[in-house]
């Protein structure tokens, strides 16, 4: 069942990739190159293509790529992942599967109401929940460290529900970004 989902996802992600940004398939991420042994003898000519946008070089940073979406939002007192974030989770799981050298720091956050330490616990529940989803989709446990920032790093500082909703958040950071 899980394999079937992964296969479908992989196909879908591949199709999406082809349709929108063909140039992003060629480059390999820095992390991946670092993790693989040096190539033996096949040395294609390294082409410099100034016509492609620099941002496209890294799928994690390409605003057109779902992998550039790193935040997942949660309902009040909840830590289950809402359906709207499934494609994002699936894309990151695929990326982690295909880039075994990639590491992720998953930071969970909470809104400001109540105890700072208890809110640290709520943020941890959220980051654990995302990590669990990613590993169920094939990412390795040792690729992801789930931590909590509790209520300490709000992106929005007004004391109202609009703001609190933005702070009930999980953020995915890849190595090199933290």
């Amino acid at each position: 069942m899980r394999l079937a989902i992964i296969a479908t996802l992989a196909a879908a992600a591949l199709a999406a990739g082809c349709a929108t940004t063909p140039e992003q398939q060629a480059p390999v991420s820095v992390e991946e190159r670092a993790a693989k042994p040096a190539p033996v003898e096949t040395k294609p000519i390294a082409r410099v293509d100034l016509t492609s946008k620099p941002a496209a070089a890294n799928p994690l940073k390409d605003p057109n790529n779902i992998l550039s979406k790193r935040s997942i939002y949660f309902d009040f007192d909840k830590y289950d992942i809402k359906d709207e974030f499934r494609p994002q989770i699936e894309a990151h799981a695929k990326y982690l599967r295909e880039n075994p050298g990639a590491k992720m720091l998953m930071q969970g956050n909470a809104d400001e109401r109540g105890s700072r330490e208890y809110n640290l616990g709520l943020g941890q529940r959220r980051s654990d929940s995302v990590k669990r989803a990613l590993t169920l989709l094939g990412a390795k446990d040792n690729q992801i460290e789930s931590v909590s920032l509790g209520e300490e790093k709000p992106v929005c500082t007004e004391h109202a529900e609009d703001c609190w909703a933005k702070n009930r958040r999980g953020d995915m950071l890849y190595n090199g970004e933290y």
Partner: protein
Amino acid sequence: MQALLTRLRAFLGAVLLLITPLAAAQLSIEITGAGAPRMPIAVAPFPGEAALGPGITSIVRADLERSGLFRGLEVPPLAPAPTEASTVNYAEWRSRLADALVLGSVAARPDGRYEVRFRLYDVVKQASLGGIAYTLSKEQVRATAHRIADFVYEKLTGEKGVFSTRIAYVVKRGNRFELQIADADGAGEEAALVSFEPIISPAWSPDGRKLAYVSFENKKPVVYVHSLVDGKRNVIANFRGSNSAPAWSPDGSKLAVTLSREGGSQIFLLNADGSGLRRLTSSAAIDTEPRFSGDGQWIYFTSDRGGSPQIYRMPAAGGEPQRITFEGSYNVTPRLSPDGKTLAYITLNEGKFQVALLDLSNRQVQIITDSDRDESPSFAPNGRMILLATVIGERGVLSAVSSDGRVKQRLSVTAGDVREPAWGPFTE
């Protein structure tokens, strides 16, 4: 003496409102709450004190007033100025409505230091309650004044004064986080740590020489122990995942912490040097905010194992937890009074986060604040006051409330958000 105590207790009957701005400091304190009528005390200026710089008697008077139990009387210039060696004219002081009187003097010593002598009198009983002589340098004026206030407070109330103790708190100024240490009156603020990342949950070691806290400087919560003597910092818990909520055992040999290394947030025990990790709780819930009881027998903590966050306790060696709080849907941050008889915690009461006190013997709950975003209650080491963080006008401030809820004080810092207070222990 007994008469004074009786009178002091009698004063605690009625209630009146007072607003007393006190000596300017980086952290300024004002008494804002409804205090009980206070014992009138005269602290006569000590002849020679001008040589010391900051007025030693005005610091003593401010300390005593801040406790909410005393009212400092204005003393007109007297000639000859009385000292601790003078014969006390009790009738005269009685006519000034003083129940208690402090007389003293300051003399320069040949070695460049100073000698401060003082004596405390019960004006009503016409008796000396004792006195002390201190030798000090100019830098020790504040510390000496706090010692004098502690002596007076203890003689007149029967409980130890906390004017010589220190407090820790975190100030957020712009994008900087400062872990500050100050005297209990907010003066002499000194930053122990300054960081661009958050600092939370400072906890004093029982000997008052170290602080354990959580710093986010590594993009995740890590527990440090920081020596205030030499500024040395040791990482105590930096396991995979989050590390937080440090609490010292009463003998200072162990720390309870919350770790997520095995999934979820669970309470673990460590030696104070970070060795000897042992898991104490085993639940699918959030178990956090551990606190040892004063006798070291129990660990109180917050857990949502019953569906909502409530306070539980378990044997300090680990074991079956028992639930302590039952009223309400949100009870967190347990803090035991120094005598172990009362539990302070934060409760969500009609949409407001407030400080509640639970009498552990009769299970009675009393809410003692009227603010709405209270956090991190911290008992003074004599149990008389509780320091807490709250929000007033969108800004974090510290506030203090007497454990009977009567006296309230506000401590504010200009241009900064203050939070995470922790009242330090008695030190020699």
